[in-house]
């Protein structure tokens, strides 16, 4: 696996979310149309219960992965991240919930962009196993 570009609180340069709801802790890479992110599932996570990361945590991980992707281009230009909001979640299929200790690796792909809305497709894996797939529309709030 390639060395990540940003880890831990380094992601704060890309996303406006702060603890206790930070749901992405690794930013591997990005180009104009895709990005790869990750999350170590830890027991203190807001969305963990009974040793598992529950469904909203998986959705939020993808949403914040998209936020980090949206924040990456401004970051490379020395700007701070803007607030992003989920406009729509589609076809979020969860195969199983990850356990505490697993590492989530998410691939994002831009399917389209229009009027401040970005449509992305995401796939979240643990190792080689696909845990969840979805599409999401993200709005980025302007100044």
């Amino acid at each position: 696996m390639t060395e990540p570009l940003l880890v831990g609180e380094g992601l704060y340069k890309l996303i406006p979310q702060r603890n206790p709801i930070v749901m992405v802790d690794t930013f591997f890479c990005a180009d104009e149309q895709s990005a790869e992110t990750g999350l170590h599932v830890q027991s203190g996570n807001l969305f963990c219960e009974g040793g598992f990361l529950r469904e909203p945590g998986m959705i939020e991980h993808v949403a914040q992965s998209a936020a980090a992707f949206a924040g990456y281009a401004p970051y490379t230009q020395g700007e701070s991240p803007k607030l992003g909001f989920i406009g729509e979640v589609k076809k979020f299929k969860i195969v199983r919930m990850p356990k505490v200790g697993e590492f989530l690796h998410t691939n994002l792909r831009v399917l389209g962009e229009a009027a401040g809305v970005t449509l992305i497709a995401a796939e979240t894996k643990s190792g080689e196993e696909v845990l969840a797939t979805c599409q999401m529309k993200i709005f980025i709030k302007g100044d």
Partner: protein
Amino acid sequence: MLIKDYYTINEVITREDGVILFQISLRPDCQVYQGHFPGEPVSPGVCNIQMVKECAEQVAGKPLFLANLQQCRLTTLVTPVQHPQVEVMIHLEEKGEAYKLKATIGKGEEVYLDLKAELTVIG
């Protein structure tokens, strides 16, 4: 409740058409607002989805797994300051081992979030 202190259910009303209406207060003191976002509390969409799921579990009388969120539109930014009282409407249909859920969060005529999902029984 997965997210501690996120909301309080004030009243549950069963309508004649089978829809269950939950009258809910969103709590501004929930710790999630410390990070979403600092100085600008916005109710996280996923916490609202979780709240809907927990209402559906109360209707089903058992814990459920959100296996497929087919569609969820978040049309209004919800905040505990601007929207302290909300209504969650649950339409839950049992289909074999699974449930089909249609739900909204809103207030009066306004809809802030609407979703369609397939939930399965845990265990």
